[in-house]
């Protein structure tokens, strides 16, 4: 633990960015690599289960995976009535990936950063105070906005596919107040369109950022008192990480089903 609480918190909330000085073209390699690894874990486990799928004698892992797939399939079936080969895999990816990214919050806040500092110091000869690592990708706006903006493009794509380009543009100018006040409709539609990814991204980001921050604050307590707050918060957080992953998935399905339906 760093001597100074402010420094400690700041250190924990700084991304490992390349290049260091930032700017738009910098990349948070911690967010990027952690989420990439988690994504590969997701794909690896699921393809493995798909490869070794047993009809008669499913193992526990297979049943668990099936449970998730079934849950996603049911949600999609209940909400999304059009035919689409994309939406269910999209929803599954969102759910599992967000869940895994959120789960990183349950690791001890100092574990991976400390290991990173050791590696940075001894392998790369860096100053440990300047080795940063934030392990929760979903507490990074870049990750959440990357997903929510992708969802927004999917919304646009689904709308165009369902109604045709002309139909979609017509809808942008004619709903919800009728074609007489076209521009006002357009403004409303754009606000509605943009509000979706922003709310999606910020909801997830806010929850995970707050959760991470509270874990960091708890880590500032003396070690014998940490469990008192840390355990209840971690248990509560199990609910939050699952719920946030579910909410992100669910809202994605809802938005996409709205996109293909007529207003």
């Amino acid at each position, binding site marked *: 633990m760093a001597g100074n609480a402010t420094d400690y918190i700041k250190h924990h909330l700084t991304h490992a960015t390349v290049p260091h000085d930032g700017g738009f073209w910098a990349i*948070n390699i911690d967010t990027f690599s952690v989420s990439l690894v988690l994504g590969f874990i997701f*794909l690896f486990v*699921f393809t493995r289960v798909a490869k070794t799928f047993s*009809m008669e004698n499913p193992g526990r892992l297979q049943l668990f995976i099936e449970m998730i797939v079934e849950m996603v399939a049911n949600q999609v079936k209940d909400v999304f009535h059009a035919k689409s080969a994309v939406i269910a895999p999209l929803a599954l990816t969102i759910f599992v990936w967000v869940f895994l990214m959120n789960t990183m919050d349950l690791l001890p806040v100092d574990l991976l950063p400390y290991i990173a500092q050791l590696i940075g110091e001894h392998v790369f000869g860096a100053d440990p105070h300047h080795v940063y690592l934030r392990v929760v990708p979903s507490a990074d706006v870049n990750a959440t906005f*990357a*997903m929510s903006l992708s969802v927004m493009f999917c919304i646009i794509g689904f709308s165009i596919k369902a109604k045709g380009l002309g139909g979609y543009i017509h809808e942008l100018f004619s709903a919800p107040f009728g074609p007489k006040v076209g521009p006002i409709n357009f403004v409303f539609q754009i606000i509605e369109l943009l509000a979706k990814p922003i709310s999606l991204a910020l909801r997830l980001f806010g929850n995970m950022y707050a959760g991470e921050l509270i874990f960091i604050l708890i880590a500032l307590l003396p070690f014998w008192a940490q469990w008192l707050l840390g355990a209840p918060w971690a248990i509560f957080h199990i609910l939050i990480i699952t719920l946030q992953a579910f909410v992100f998935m669910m809202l994605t399905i809802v938005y996409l089903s709205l996109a293909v339906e007529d207003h």
Partner: protein
Amino acid sequence: MDINATLLGQAITFAILVWFTMKFVWPPLTNMMDERAKRIADGLAAAERGKQDLEQASKRVEEQIRQAKQQATELVMAAEKRANQIIEEAKQAAKVEGEKIITDARAEIGQEVQRAKEALRAQVADITVAGAEKILRREIDAAKHADLLASIKAEL
């Protein structure tokens, strides 16, 4: 909370994950789950059919057993009837035979009696003739009274 190029990287990662899931994860998993659901449904239907078949079969078996029992009863009854009939016939035959034997015996006895009577009569006649001869020898010449004697003999 800086937006930077990480967003693009994340979006690309996300797209790849979704693409991969769409290609290699979702279809095989759901296909196989559907397949299994179908298999289970088929299995249950087959089990139901089997149950019905079994019920029908046991009904048929019961029916057959009932018929067999009935046939057996009929057979036994017929056999008993036939046995009685045979016994009756045998009795009848025995009776007839017996009567025949008795009749034959009677006829034989009659013949025997007749023969005995015949013999007796002949002897009696002889004895009578002999007696009469002895009585009459003194008075009757056999040669003289031959025809008389013969007529007497014939009358006896």
